[in-house]
């Protein structure tokens, strides 16, 4: 039996639309895949899904009716992981959700391999979200915007924006995901998603000095000083240090890369 692959645009709406199509067309062996991951294969039937808000809404509404709030969270957060086969794992979870007599418990069956796998992925995504809450380092630019660049392992920026909005309600800020080429900007009233085109890829991990406030460097020096002074040398434990602050994040951390 040939599998049918639904190819979608990578958005959450697109994914939900694909789920709708799977059910509407009663496909027996469905697969859902992002366009960027898809490679045409002789043995597959494939179909391009056109994202349809109406269809996506219908699926999301049905999920809302029967799933627990934790399960909804699980579905969205797992999706943000961008793992290559996450769509199929989620499709498995949704099929179970739509057919079981105990839909409220569906995300808690940790003896089901795939459900357990999804819960582990969600844990990874949540950890990454939490890391970004911690590792964002704002630099004040001349136009008075606190600006930070990040490069998270998963697409967690949508999850971070509420946290930063609650916290920095009285300052303009911009957090830019340089891997996914978009950012969120808070203009003192609301959050906007911004896409910035850079003409070259150089210096994406640092903001050029001429755009920063004159005192910005001095504050970074103070922070570095604090970081060094608060360390207890006789308890040195670099293994633990690196476990908590993995090296891939260092280039964005003032205290690790220097000023």
């Amino acid at each position, binding site marked *: 039996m040939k599998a049918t692959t639904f190819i979608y645009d990578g958005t959450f709406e697109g994914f939900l639309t694909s789920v709708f199509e799977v059910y509407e067309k009663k496909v027996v062996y469905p697969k859902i895949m992002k366009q960027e991951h898809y490679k045409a294969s002789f043995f597959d039937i494939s179909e391009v899904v056109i994202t349809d808000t109406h269809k996506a809404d219908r699926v999301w509404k049905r999920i809302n009716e029967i799933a627990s709030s934790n399960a909804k969270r699980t579905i969205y957060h797992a999706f943000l992981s961008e793992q290559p086969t996450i769509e199929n794992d989620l499709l498995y979870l949704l099929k179970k959700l739509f057919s079981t007599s105990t839909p409220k418990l569906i995300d*808690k069956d940790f*003896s089901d391999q795939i459900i357990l796998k999804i819960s582990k992925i969600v844990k990874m995504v949540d950890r990454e979200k939490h890391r970004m809450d911690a590792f964002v380092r*704002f630099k004040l630019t001349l136009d008075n915007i606190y600006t930070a660049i990040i490069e998270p392992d998963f697409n967690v920026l949508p999850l971070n924006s509420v946290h930063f909005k609650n916290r920095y*309600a*009285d300052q303009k800020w911009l957090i830019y995901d340089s891997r996914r080429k978009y950012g969120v900007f808070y203009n003192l009233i609301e959050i906007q998603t911004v896409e910035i085109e850079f003409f070259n890829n150089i210096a994406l991990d640092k903001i050029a000095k001429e755009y920063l406030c004159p005192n910005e460097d001095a504050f970074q020096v103070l922070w570095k000083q604090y970081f060094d002074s608060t360390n207890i040398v006789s308890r040195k434990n670099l293994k633990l240090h690196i476990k*908590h602050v993995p090296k891939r994040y260092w280039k964005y951390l003032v205290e690790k890369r220097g000023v």
Partner: protein
Amino acid sequence: MNFERIKEKLEILADAAKYDVSCSSSGSKRTNKNKGLGDSSGMGICHTYTEDGRCVSLLKILLTNHCIYDCAYCVTRRSNDIKRAAFKVQEVVDLTISFYRRNYIEGLFLSSGIFKNGDYTMERLIQVAKKLREEENFNGYIHLKSIPGASDELMREAGLYADRLSINIEIPTEKGLKLLAPEKNRKDFIQPMQKVANEIIQYKSEKKLIKSTPIYAPAGQSTQMIVGASGETDAEIMYTSSYFYKKFNLKRVYYSGYVPISYDNRLPSIGSDVPILRENRLYQTDWLLRFYGFDIRELLNKENPNLDTDIDPKLSWALRNFGNFPIDVNRADKNMLARIPGIGLKSVYKIINARRFRKLNWEHLKAIGISLNRAKYFIVCDSRTFESKDRTAAQVKGLILGSIKSKFHHSYSNQLNLFDGQQKIIS
């Protein structure tokens, strides 16, 4: 801001504050008001970690390291020949705000050496917190030190601005305190702690009647004890700790392995190791008491005044009570599951949920993530293969020790084996 001068002060006063291990920024309920700055209603965040692996969540500094006391264990003691410095109130406020706006920190942890007297010092600390709250509309986390001997009125005021208050008893026994800090009195620590505890109780009951009651120290109180400075046993530390948890309703007790900073012959000499493993075992015990439903008497008592170093305290308890095992993971209640070595609270949660769907076998348990190398001797599940039941506790201990490689292995094996080096040469 004179950045050069501030940098020097930061160097001295952050260095002097680092032996206070508390860095928690969680448990508060302060939300952002009127589009101000900051919010501390969520979970705590560790913004970075020092090279010793400790979390950096707050700007932890002393207001000054001038001190009228001469406590032997303390680096800022009067008789110590070190550089002294003092921040101005406004400098601390500005530094906190500029760090917070850059997302370096969750807030401020302000402590101080005691200059003039307790009240005078406490007043300065309160001034900083008050300025932050009232002039800067700052809703980030503030942890203030309660200064020994501070008056009830000041402690009342401090709680109105701070999220957490703490006062370190430092030395677990009165005997030790007399030896190392003869100028200090237990009573001077207890009084501010008692006042804060009472205020928190009063706040909670008033809050039920009057919604607008101003919040008082929403993240509660904590304290710290130095481990290994005054020759105390683990039992003495943990019984003191659980007394304080109960009596003053503390949120946390911190245990700080003594870092030698003095040639005073009352103390471990400079160059001796920080007792990191012991500190770790004490924290494990603390967790068992607060989250796993253990009673202190089960873990430490007359027969066992010190914790085992080679195995964790839960495993020690299980081996002493080997007759209570094996436990059936498919039937046991939550409290019993939490007592099985190798099963943590997250695994308990997963087991309880998963077993509603089907009986769990070894594969399920392994996938869930419990440490089978310890747990397997203490449980049965939906499987025909079991660890042999007629082993003694001592045999099980030997098997477990043979199967794990502890990161602390060197720190207990060296004490036991004087000839370690020689053996290596021979073999």
